[in-house]
């Protein structure tokens, strides 16, 4: 899931060249870009703070059942029946507190799964690109096979069989994301490995590991960071989908996906429970995507000013 939106953006970066910037009319475009990056970054920072300080910031206990206020609308929209800033769900739990606490799972899963993908994908890409055949063939073929697996279905199956839980979700989600990084790093490595500084390093007797991690890797960091930021949003989307299907982390933890699943039975009577968790997901993913686009402009000199 994560891979596709990342590859869309990376392919797009490649598709666009310098003329684009001229067409776009210089300053206004640059300003707009930064403006989006600023919003994206603020969204990510805001949700990170919400996640870290959730127990302090949430107005009430996210699990506290209050049968006197079932499916109450937000207090500002209906002063008689309203309860809480965003209303309550079908058990009278405060939606605002649940959305705030839900950010913990989303961000934790998003960050950890992205890191796992990086830790597997980057070395694979380096090895495939630097060592060449036959390792390259094996890794590339394996990546091809994995990308033809309907991974969401497989995730659903495995997590149902061995049980969800935070750790399992993170591990399997992370392993679904390594292909994108591996392909990216492999491509970059292939073009860097014949450059003079790599050949000199080899000539003075640097080990292969040293060449890969000290000489090639630093040159690939920028695109890796961009790809990771963009795929972070995809990880959050997949986690919320799994929670929605009832497979994600345990039921005692509020997650946005689970909140949306629980809201479905009440769509005839209340709108809030199915609206606000979705808005939270969109805000975080949008934040990640805009931050990634902005980083792409800032970090990748080949694309600077190209959008």
């Amino acid at each position, binding site marked *: *899931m994560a*891979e*596709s*939106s990342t*590859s*869309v953006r990376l*392919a*797009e970066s*490649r*598709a*666009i*060249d310098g*003329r*684009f910037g001229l*067409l*776009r009319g210089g300053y206004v475009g640059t300003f707009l870009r930064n403006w989006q990056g600023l919003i994206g970054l603020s969204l990510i920072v805001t949700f990170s703070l919400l996640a870290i300080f959730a127990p302090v910031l949430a107005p009430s206990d996210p699990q506290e059942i209050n049968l006197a206020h079932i499916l109450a609308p937000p207090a500002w929209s209906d002063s008689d029946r309203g309860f809480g800033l965003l209303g309550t769900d079908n058990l009278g739990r405060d939606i605002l507190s649940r959305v705030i606490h839900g950010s913990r799972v989303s961000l934790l899963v998003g960050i950890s799964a992205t890191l796992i993908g990086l830790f597997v994908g980057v070395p694979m890409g380096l090895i495939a690109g630097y060592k060449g055949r036959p390792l390259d063939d094996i890794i590339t*073929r*394996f990546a*091809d*096979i*994995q*990308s*033809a*697996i*309907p*991974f*969401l*279905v*497989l995730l*659903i*199956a*495995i997590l*149902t*069989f*061995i049980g969800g839980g935070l750790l399992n979700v993170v591990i399997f989600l992370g392993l679904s994301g390594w292909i994108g990084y591996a392909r990216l790093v492999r491509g970059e490595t292939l073009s860097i490995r014949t450059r003079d500084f790599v050949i000199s390093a080899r000539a003075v007797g640097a080990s292969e590991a040293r060449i890969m991690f000290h000489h090639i890797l630093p040159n690939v960091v920028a695109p890796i960071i961009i790809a990771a930021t963009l795929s972070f*949003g995809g990880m959050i*989307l997949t986690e*919320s*989908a799994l929670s*929605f*299907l009832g497979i994600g982390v345990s039921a005692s933890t509020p997650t946005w*996906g689970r909140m*949306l699943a629980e*809201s*479905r039975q009440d*769509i*005839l009577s209340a*709108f809030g429970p*199915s*609206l606000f*968790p*979705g808005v939270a*997901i*969109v805000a975080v*993913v*949008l934040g990640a*995507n805009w931050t990634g686009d902005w980083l792409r402009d800032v970090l990748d000199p080949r694309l600077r000013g190209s959008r």
Partner: protein
Amino acid sequence: MTSYIARRLLQGALVVVGVITIVFFLVRVSGDPATYFVSLDPDKTPADIQLELVEIRKSLGLDRPVIIQYFLFVQVAIRGDFGNSFRYHIPATRVVLERVPLSLKLGGAAAVIGVGVGLPLGIAAALKRGSMIDSVSTTIAVLGLTVPGFWLGIMLIILFAVKLHLLPAAGSESWRHLILPALTQSAGLMAVVARMGRSGMLEVLGQDYVRTARAKGLSERLVVFRHALRNSMISLITVVGSSIPHLVGTIVIVEVVFAWPGLGSLMMQSVFSRDYPVIMLGVLFMSVITVVVFIIVDVLYAIVDPRIRYR
């Protein structure tokens, strides 16, 4: 061209074999379905349950080593026999084949909407930069990649089924049932196509051959549709191709949200009821569809860009 397609088909077949192998071991290693089929009877002693487990494993062929199970599975699967569904006690192939047309219908409708709306939007946005239509296209492109499919589905149900009473919320009886799920499923593709259509077109419009075409006095329509469009397709096809596995995944969720009885909802039920033969065959179908689309994308690619044809 023929040998190119043949080679791609062979590679595709190898990929499918790889998928089946990996999925088989992951699924078998991750759980014992026998526990799921033990009948619940309060009078049973733990020893009775153990005995029943052994019997169930034997009847389902799960008592042998996993590697033997794998070879037995492959041996009969080659002949199209995937065993009986644990749940329905009829051949898994029948259970799955019954549902496939519905999923193809949903996926096909979504592809038509996604490309049918996304491509004109993207091209129009590129031709009229900064206009209203550019903003609409960009907004759709952004939302399509950030809004989770299941949430979009719920919102569409609330709007069109609950509030406006225009369309049914669930089921698959008529073409009206198809509209909301197809719209939901098309959102991601529409976003990708609109976004890549726009940037691909913009890139091409700046090329020398487009300037030449304009300079020799061709009409704008001819420049856009004859010279620019075809070349702008190259990056678009690549990206659409690479988003196929993602689309196959989201169809599962869309089918669950709209109670669409296709392959996706069958897979969900089969996972929850540990119906291994159906899971295996369903995964096989989905990866075959993915691989076939990959091959179609490669062939399209070769048609659009003759430079790579016989590589």
